């Protein structure tokens, strides 16, 4: 005996001697204590000694059964199933149930079918039935020794062949009809019924997962078929739910479930683990890391083409966004190492996205997008690619139009217009962009380009009502009334009840009538007015027609003949008297016909003798209505009312009313009246700075006193938290105090002749083109932050330098070492030399040293240089 074994034997003997010395009460007490603290082995020892020394009592036997059960379960839990079965076997002599489900389960799990069969033979019919599913499952698992011991009529034996055939048919992929046929051989009382239920559920699962889940749930978790049912239940879950359940399974069950789903691979486990780590709301950094890790770990054959595409697509997207964060997790090298090298096209595309995501100035974004589109154009090979290239170009040009509009206070400018033109060349089907262009051209009175654009727009959208509506307005604006009527008729062909088109038609006929009136072609005037009357119009157009008809009578038949016509229309029109008065003035002046007599005939001459607020607002209403629909100038008829309107400035207007009048006067360009009204209103409403704005809004320049007043008003508006006024005043102040914005820059009108006050901002302010680069550099600097290291800054500059055009490079070189020297580099080494010079400076070399290499002396730095100096 070895030394170790001798020690163990000694310890056992010593322990046994110690136990034997204990009294029965002490043994019982200690056994109970051991049981309560789950020390079943010690409890069994004490209780067995107790049984040996005393008579067996029910209490002692119950305690012993409890100890054995606990010990067997303890062993089973530790995976020692055979030992658990042996313990239970021993304990049956103390009264433990030989057909306990736990015991039977362990027997099955340890594949001791001979034992199961032995037990089965000893049971009565009722107990046998409860054990039959266990035996049935054991038989199907391949242990046929059980069958030999069973009677021929035993259902486990008699149904075995049918059940086994069914199982094999199912596993080999037999079709639904065949399986249903085979299932009929297994009755609902058969011990194989759970198998039948599972296969039935599977067939449902192949069609819809929800119903299958319910069918599988009918199988009790005590059934020996339950492990198989559980796998099917897992297979029916959605991927995210499956991932949650999956983590709680044993390794064997997990592999089985993955196999059924077709995911049986170690890599799947990696994906599951990674995705679970993400949580519900992953950050950009977490996403970046996860995607990178996944893209490195997944081999191509395990990924469907869709997931591969998506992984690439998303990884790059995350990369672009994460670059915005200075502590981004991904970098270019990592990305290309994981998802493959980027093509030039991809590289340029992600550069575009990068500048967009980082909200760089539009000039910078434009260059990147143009460079991408250039590459896209050269790589488009087939028809589909070319069509897509045009669409992409249109989309990106649309983006640029919108960006430039934001940058330039929501207005279309030459820059944004060039992108809009390009967008319409690429995608003429974009009706909204056509409308935007035509609306702009109409507003800017650029009628020739508007007509050209209209031709193209209508070629692609011949029935677009909005474009046709604009066509009418453009034609009327250009006095092309026949064309306008033609467009309006096209609208009515598409939409016969379009009231706007009917109105347009009326105005077109009215305008044409006025034109004929001037040429005294009375029959044509008559004809046009008749045609105008055919369309459903408004009370305004009705009065306009009547006024023109009355003027025609006056011209043809004399003043007396027209008197009643003017009188009637003045009486019958539902419009305000002020409106009728204005229409008579307006039409009369437009057709070069004296309106004084007409007004006299209409008995309106005294109307403006006593101006009041109602008359002023009635006038505003009618003028605005006429301006909206008719291209005719309203300045002449308004001038004819200048005296009473000037008088009306003294009326007690409230601030809101005053603002409305001032806005109107700005709209109609009546500067003298605006000055009159705003002066009076400013005196009356001293605490309302907005009237200072109206007072100076049309001024081209201001003296110091006026500028002081404007500044004071701005301060008051800020104090009053009147954001709208304060912003308007600030804009006005900026405009009036900026010498570059005025044609009088540097003149005596601006500045006193005191030499100290004279300054030339053009020395300090960068040129607009340079400004874009300055902005780009500033944004770039802001992105990296103050704490960023020099390498980060150098990276950004390295990105800026390659796109710098010659002029900027020259300016930079010039600012570093003088114009002559910059010119020398350019002459000697061209743009490449300039770029190299700047890049060497970026790498930390002194400009003088670099220049020395080239044999040129240095000069003083400038604004741009000082800014880039920070980056260097």
């Amino acid at each position, binding site marked *: 005996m070895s030394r170790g074994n001798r020690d163990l034997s000694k310890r056992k003997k010593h322990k046994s001697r110690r136990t034997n010395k204990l009294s029965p009460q002490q043994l019982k007490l200690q056994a109970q204590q051991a049981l309560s603290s789950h020390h079943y082995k010690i409890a069994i020892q004490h209780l067995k000694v107790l049984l040996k020394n005393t008579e067996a009592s029910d209490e002692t036997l119950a305690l012993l059964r409890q100890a054995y059960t606990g010990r067997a379960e303890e062993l089973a839990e530790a995976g020692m199933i055979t030992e658990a079965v042996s313990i239970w076997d021993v304990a049956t002599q103390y009264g433990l149930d030989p057909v306990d489900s736990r015991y039977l389960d362990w027997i099955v799990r340890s594949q001791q079918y001979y034992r199961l069969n032995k037990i089965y033979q000893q049971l009565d019919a009722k107990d046998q039935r409860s054990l039959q599913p266990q035996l049935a499952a054991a038989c199907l*698992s391949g242990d046929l020794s059980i069958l030999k011991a069973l009677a021929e009529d035993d259902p486990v034996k008699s149904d075995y062949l049918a059940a086994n055939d069914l199982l094999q048919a199912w596993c080999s992929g037999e079709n639904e009809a065949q399986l249903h046929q085979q299932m009929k051989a297994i009755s609902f009382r058969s011990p194989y019924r759970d198998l039948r239920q599972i296969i039935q559920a599977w067939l449902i699962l192949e069609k819809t997962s929800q119903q299958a889940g319910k069918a599988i749930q009918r199988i009790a978790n005590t059934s020996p078929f339950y492990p198989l049912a559980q796998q099917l239940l897992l297979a029916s879950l959605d991927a995210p739910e499956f991932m949650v359940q999956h983590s709680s399974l044993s390794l064997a069950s997990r592999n*089985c479930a993955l196999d059924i789903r077709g995911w049986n691979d170690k890599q799947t486990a990696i994906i599951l683990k990674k995705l679970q780590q993400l949580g519900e709301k992953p950050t950009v950094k977490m996403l970046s890391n996860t995607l990178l890790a996944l893209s490195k770990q997944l081999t191509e054959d395990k990924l469907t083409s869709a997931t591969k595409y998506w992984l690439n697509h998303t990884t790059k997207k995350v990369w672009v966004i994460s670059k915005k964060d200075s502590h981004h997790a991904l970098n270019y090298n990592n990305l290309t190492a994981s998802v493959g090298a980027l093509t030039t096209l991809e590289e340029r595309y992600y550069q575009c996205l990068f500048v967009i995501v980082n909200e760089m100035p539009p000039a910078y974004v434009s260059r990147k997008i143009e460079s991408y589109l250039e590459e896209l154009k050269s790589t488009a090979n087939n028809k589909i690619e070319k069509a897509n290239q045009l669409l992409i170009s249109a989309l990106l040009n649309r983006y640029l139009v919108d960006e430039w509009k934001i940058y330039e206070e929501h207005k279309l400018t030459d820059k944004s217009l060039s992108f809009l033109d390009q967008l319409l060349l690429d995608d003429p089907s974009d009706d909204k962009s056509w409308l935007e262009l035509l609306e702009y051209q109409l507003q800017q009175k650029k009628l020739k380009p508007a007509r050209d654009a209209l031709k193209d727009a209508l070629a692609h959208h011949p029935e677009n009502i909005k474009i046709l509506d604009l066509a009418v307005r453009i034609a009327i604006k250009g006095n092309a009334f026949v064309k306008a009527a033609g467009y309006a008729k096209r609208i009515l062909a598409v939409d016969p009840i379009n009231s706007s088109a009917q109105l347009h038609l009326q105005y077109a006929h009215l305008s044409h009538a006025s034109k004929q009136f001037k040429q005294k072609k009375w029959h044509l005037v008559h004809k046009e007015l008749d045609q105008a009357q055919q369309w459903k119009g408004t009370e305004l157009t009705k009065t306009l027609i009547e006024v023109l008809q009355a003027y025609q009578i006056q011209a043809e038949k004399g003043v007396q003949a027209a008197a009643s016509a003017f009188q009637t229309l003045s009486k019958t029109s539902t419009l305000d008297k002020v409106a009728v008065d204005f229409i008579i003035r307006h039409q009369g002046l437009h057709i070069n016909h004296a309106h004084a007599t007409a007004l006299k005939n209409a008995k309106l001459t005294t109307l403006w003798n006593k101006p009041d607020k109602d008359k002023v607002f009635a006038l505003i209403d009618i003028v605005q209505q006429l301006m909206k629909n008719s291209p005719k100038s309203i300045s002449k008829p308004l001038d004819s009312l200048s005296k009473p309107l000037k008088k009306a400035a003294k009326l007690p207007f409230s601030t809101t009313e005053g603002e409305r009048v001032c806005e109107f006067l700005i709209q109609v360009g009546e500067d003298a009246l605006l000055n009159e009204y705003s002066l009076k209103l400013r005196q009356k409403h001293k605490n309302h700075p907005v009237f200072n704005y109206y007072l100076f809004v049309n001024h081209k320049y201001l003296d110091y006193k006026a500028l002081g007043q404007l500044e004071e008003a701005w301060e008051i508006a800020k104090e009053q938290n009147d954001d709208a006024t304060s912003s308007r005043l600030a804009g006005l102040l900026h405009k009036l105090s900026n010498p570059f914005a005025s044609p009088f820059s540097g003149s005596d009108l601006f500045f006193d002749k005191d030499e100290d006050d004279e300054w030339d901002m053009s020395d300090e302010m960068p040129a607009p083109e340079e400004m874009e680069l300055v902005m780009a550099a500033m944004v770039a600097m802001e992105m990296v932050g103050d704490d960023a290291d020099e390498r980060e800054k150098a990276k950004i500059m390295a990105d800026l330098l390659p796109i710098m055009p010659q002029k900027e490079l020259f300016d930079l070189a010039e600012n570093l070492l003088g114009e002559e020297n910059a010119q020398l580099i350019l002459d000697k080494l061209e743009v490449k030399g300039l770029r190299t010079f700047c890049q060497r400076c970026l790498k930390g070399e002194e400009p003088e040293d670099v220049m020395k290499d080239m044999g040129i002396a240095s000069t003083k730095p400038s604004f741009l240089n000082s800014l880039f100096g920070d980056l260097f």
Partner: protein
Amino acid sequence: MNDPYLILGLLEQKVDDSLDDKAVKVAYTRLLQQHPPDREPEKFKQIRKAFEQLETQKKRLKYDLLDMTLPDQEDLSVLLPATSLHRPSLQLVQKLLG
């Protein structure tokens, strides 16, 4: 789920380059039948938004080019191979029953 291709179940077609306006409409109609707006208003909103993003080739290009919405965890779960149920092998079933 954020990705409209995933929401409408069109990723495979997108990759195959076989996606057209009709396929998007078919997928949208099918999903509407599965998730009626009156019963599942939230799901409907999600489906509708995805449809509006992918309705035409131009819109699809716009999404591909300029949309910067990040994927969420549900989107990522698509990395798992598509579920196509396999009948287990006899050996596997015997192991489970044994």
